[in-house]
């Protein structure tokens, strides 16, 4: 038994995705991405900027799941209109979810099935096309399976490397940095920017990860995802006093 949970290790892996980002807006969508981004800000990446989810830039890191936290310190105003400007300007790293994602990082949050008459209408395109073509994007997948890591997405909302390649210079701001799932961490360092398994979380084997993907993952030098440090575990307890993250990723 390790002295940390899978969710805590995922939070650390997500925090690592933002390492080196400095003075940009991070937009983590979902509880685990929020936890990871706030962990990064409170430890090794203090210049990161975040919104309160409404219209303020806040310099404080609130706990996830609505637990009480420090009095928010507002450092700026960021309504949707300014977010859209900032997206085009590129000083942002978003971590979105993905109902489906393929080997080149094409992401689907729009709908499942035929677009004209979908089996399941999901969120819609939202900001995924504009995010991915304009600035760094990463993805969080809380329940990796062969139904999520698919050979081909039903609808491409987020732009993958194969589509970006065709755009040439027009895609020069496109970067999909990482995918973090409940099983491991991935980048797009394979041939032609194919998705590559970088590390597996504690207790997960490479075979587990490969079995939870419909496409062939690039697997060469796979590490174990690093464990949270004692300091990080302390920060995570403050950021998630009610264990919200463990409800999303058990174990």
């Amino acid at each position, binding site marked *: 038994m390790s002295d940390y949970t899978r969710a805590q290790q995922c939070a650390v892996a997500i925090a690592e995705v933002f390492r080196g980002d400095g003075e940009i807006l991070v937009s983590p969508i979902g509880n685990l991405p929020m936890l990871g981004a706030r962990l990064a800000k409170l430890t090794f990446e203090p210049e990161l900027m975040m919104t309160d989810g*409404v*219209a*303020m830039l806040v310099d404080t890191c609130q706990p996830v799941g609505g637990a009480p936290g420090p009095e928010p310190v507002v450092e700026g105003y960021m*309504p*949707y*209109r300014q977010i*859209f400007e900032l*997206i*085009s300007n590129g000083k942002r790293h978003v971590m979105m979810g993905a109902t489906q994602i393929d080997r080149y990082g094409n992401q689907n949050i*729009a*709908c499942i099935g035929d*677009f*004209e*008459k*979908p*089996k*399941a*209408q*999901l*969120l*819609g*395109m*939202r*900001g*995924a*096309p*504009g995010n*991915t*073509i*304009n600035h760094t994007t990463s993805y969080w997948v809380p329940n990796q399976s062969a139904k999520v890591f698919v050979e081909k997405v039903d*609808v*491409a*909302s*987020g*732009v*993958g490397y194969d*589509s*970006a390649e*065709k*755009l040439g*210079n*027009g*895609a020069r*701001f*496109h970067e999909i940095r990482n995918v973090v799932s409940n099983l491991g961490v991935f980048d797009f360092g394979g041939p032609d920017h194919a998705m590559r398994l970088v590390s597996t979380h504690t207790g997960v084997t490479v075979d587990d990860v490969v079995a939870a993907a419909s496409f062939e993952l690039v697997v060469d030098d796979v590490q174990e995802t690093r464990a949270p440090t004692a300091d990080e575990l302390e920060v995570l307890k403050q950021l998630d006093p009610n264990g919200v993250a463990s409800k999303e990723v058990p174990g």
Partner: protein
Amino acid sequence: MDKRTTEKEVVAELRDGMTIGIGGWGSRRKPMSIVREIIRSDLKDLTIVSYGGPDVGLLCATGKVKKVIYGFVSLDSIPLEPHFRIARQTASIEAVELDEGMFQWGLIAAAHRLPFLPTRAGLGSDIEKYNPDIKTVKSPYADGETFLAMPALDLDVALIHMNRGDERGNGQFLGPDFFFDDLYCYAAKRRFMSVEKIVPTKDLLNEGSFHTLKINRTMVDGVIEAPNGAHFTECPPDYNRDEAFQKAYAATAKDPDVWAEFKKTYLDTASEAEYQEAVKNR
């Protein structure tokens, strides 16, 4: 000029097949009292242009809509709008699904009376595949870059909701985010604004700083005083979203009998006043 009017008078101006832009965002500051009046009317085949929330869901569920142009349709605290999902999954509406930023660009183009604006948003995604009418354009300058040419989202009518206004059509937002409501007005031929409260012009600055006076009277043809008019969407600082009501609304998508009951109680009301009374008495 006194531009005060009513939901009924506004809806009497609308015609089948019109393109109607609805301000707000998701389940936030939507001109719901006007939406409810549209539901009471015989209007049909509307094209709705919206950062969609229950405005889109309700209009779809009541058969008013031919086409929806949107970046998303969400109830915020309930991420997926259930009645909109039914409309999509039964293909009862035509869907033009855009990136949120493209959508704004289309409104800006229309507001500036331009046929299109270039953007990178949408390139490389499936938006081009599902919208073959949206073309690309090559930069005429040395860079020669190819952009998506987002067409103007020209509107017949814009409907918005503000916190305060005066009888001449000046509007004031007091919440955290104005969204894109000015662009809807500039993009439309006819513009109608509901407000929580009409105040004398000289009192507008008592309500909030000059930064909040974002709608001026060139942008508005009619103003409706509609207290609680954005219900059940939020309208801060006047009121929060009515989460219990929204939850009940969302649940109606699961059961036709529950929907029929909801419709009878709240939508088949004779007037906005009767709706507000039904909400109060629940």
